[in-house]
């Protein structure tokens, strides 16, 4: 193991690891005063999550994020200052929104820009998480690729259709980067708790506690009351448990609020599968240590026999165009299904679109059942007003635009039974009425893949001369 950087906050050994979580999603913003209050507690690490599958598959497919460059820069700057001036490492997980090479490079340029503007020098490790399609195809052939529950099987064509495939890294590559003296670790796709768990695991603290604390801290102050992704928390982990405390004085953690957050976005609160093993929480205890801090004990990590990572890949489904329109006529609203069926038929007869391969036409009827679709219990209630979104998908943007346009004009002028309003059926709030949605994707890979070990897929790049990025670097 490489010698510990002499000025690292853990250089002389630690009884407990303190981790500052400035916020739950890089780019959402956080109060600087609360961040400063966190720095006053002498944290050993600052960690932040910068991505998720939540926003949809297009992020990974197109290589885009959901927060702006300006917001990312604003949020990163105080963290990088702490890394440079105080020697507190900063770990950013799932950089750029989805953690593919395009995302990581976007984030790397922002980091390099901040360092360069301030004349700061830092050792920056960039850990990529892209998986070559050939590697995934080979795993498919070997029987090493497994869909997660409710996920369709993938074939070779599906795998190769994905513009990018990423794997969720575990702690191993982050530990390697920290051991080699990284001031800043910019990670591609990461299992959410790993940017928090890597340092304590590296220092010999129990993995179960480290992962569980990371699972909660990666959402910022969402486990507090009132909850917020855009506020700071501090976590303190020892060998028997960990304590969570919000840094905003108006927030508090209670055993119930923290326990409730443990459930969040997970299908099984008692067992959370991750890279290399499961986080097991069935024996957890949540106890108040003050009126605003909670101690958690009993979290365990069970390593699995084979090391599996989760893959994510988005495959293109075509292009989208939409039109937004309002309906206020009670006669038409009462016969809405008839009208929509007729429009669907008209697009087939006149345009030769719907039903053809690569085309799709949906009508989202807000005020009736657009949110829940067939699960809507009140679908048969007749509203006084309905908002219709015409959702047209085609093999090219031009095709989608044409289908949307045809569906819009057909619905505008459709003569339903009993129609008295012959001027037009729709109120368009906007001119132009139609909008291009660009390429549409679906999650085609949401599988686990067997790998040699936790380092196999995640190479570390060191950025800047001799690992230092400063004014000279960019």
């Amino acid at each position: 193991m490489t010698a510990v950087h002499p000025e690292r906050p853990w250089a002389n050994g630690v009884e407990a690891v303190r981790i500052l979580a400035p916020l739950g999603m890089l780019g959402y913003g956080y109060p600087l005063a609360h961040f400063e209050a966190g720095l006053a507690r002498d944290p050993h690490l600052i960690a932040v999550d910068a991505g998720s599958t939540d926003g949809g598959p297009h992020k990974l497919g197109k290589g885009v994020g959901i927060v702006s460059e300006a917001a990312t820069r604003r949020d990163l700057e105080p963290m990088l200052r702490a890394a440079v001036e105080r020697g507190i490492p900063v770990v950013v997980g799932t950089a750029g929104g989805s953690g593919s090479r395009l995302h990581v490079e976007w984030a790397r340029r922002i980091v390099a820009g901040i360092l360069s503007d301030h004349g700061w020098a830092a050792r920056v490790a960039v850990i990529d998480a892209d998986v070559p399609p050939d590697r995934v195809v080979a795993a498919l052939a070997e029987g090493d690729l497994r869909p997660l529950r409710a996920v369709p099987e993938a074939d070779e064509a599906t795998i190769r259709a994905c513009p990018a495939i990423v794997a969720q890294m575990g702690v191993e590559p982050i530990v390697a980067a920290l051991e080699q003296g990284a001031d800043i670790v910019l990670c591609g796709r990461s299992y959410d708790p790993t940017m928090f768990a890597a340092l304590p695991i590296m220092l010999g603290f129990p993995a179960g506690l480290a992962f569980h604390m990371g699972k909660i801290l990666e959402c910022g102050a969402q486990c507090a009351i009132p909850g917020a992704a855009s506020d700071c928390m501090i976590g303190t982990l020892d060998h028997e448990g960990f304590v969570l405390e919000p840094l905003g004085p108006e927030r508090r953690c209670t055993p119930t609020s923290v326990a409730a957050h443990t459930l969040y976005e997970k299908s099984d609160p008692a067992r959370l599968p991750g890279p290399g093993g499961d986080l097991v929480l069935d024996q957890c205890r949540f106890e108040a240590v003050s009126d605003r801090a909670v101690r958690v004990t009993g979290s365990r990590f069970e390593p699995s026999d084979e090391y599996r990572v989760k893959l994510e890949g988005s495959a293109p489904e075509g292009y989208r165009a939409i039109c937004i329109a309002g309906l206020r006529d009670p006669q038409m609203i009462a016969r809405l299904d008839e009208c929509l069926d007729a429009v669907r038929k008209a697009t087939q007869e006149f345009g030769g679109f719907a039903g053809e391969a690569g085309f799709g036409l949906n009508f989202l009827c807000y005020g009736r059942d657009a949110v829940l679709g067939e699960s809507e219990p009140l679908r048969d209630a007749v509203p006084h007003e309905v908002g219709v979104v015409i959702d047209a998908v085609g093999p090219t943007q031009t095709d989608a635009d044409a289908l949307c346009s045809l569906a819009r004009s057909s619905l505008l002028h459709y003569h339903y039974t009993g129609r008295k309003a012959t001027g037009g059926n729709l109120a368009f709030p906007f001119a132009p009425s139609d909008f291009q949605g660009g390429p549409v994707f679906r999650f085609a890979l949401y599988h686990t893949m067997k790998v040699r070990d936790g380092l196999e897929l995640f190479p570390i790049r060191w950025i800047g001369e001799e690992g230092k990025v400063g004014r000279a670097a960019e």
Partner: protein
Amino acid sequence: MGARLSDLAAVIRSKNAGPFEVTVDILFEDEAAFARARQSPALTPKAIADAYRMPEDRVLDILFYEPARAIKINLRRAASSGSTGDTDVYGAQHYAPLLDVQIDDA
């Protein structure tokens, strides 16, 4: 006399658990309400499938987590998050059919 689930629970929320499942969390302030709800015939797989007007095989789990006094219901999505035909990319509004479910007195 019964009560609506939304009157009995402190939190009812839904969110994606990965892009192919929606997970619904129902959290209770007190043990009695939690115990009453978890025994209710209104929260069996069949009853939940009926509330959502979906086939029962889309109700993947009904789990209980004592530390949070929580009931968790996992549903298989009709369309994966953000794909064509999806209506709720984050799955954040898919708790609504449970609000009016009637829970009988213990």
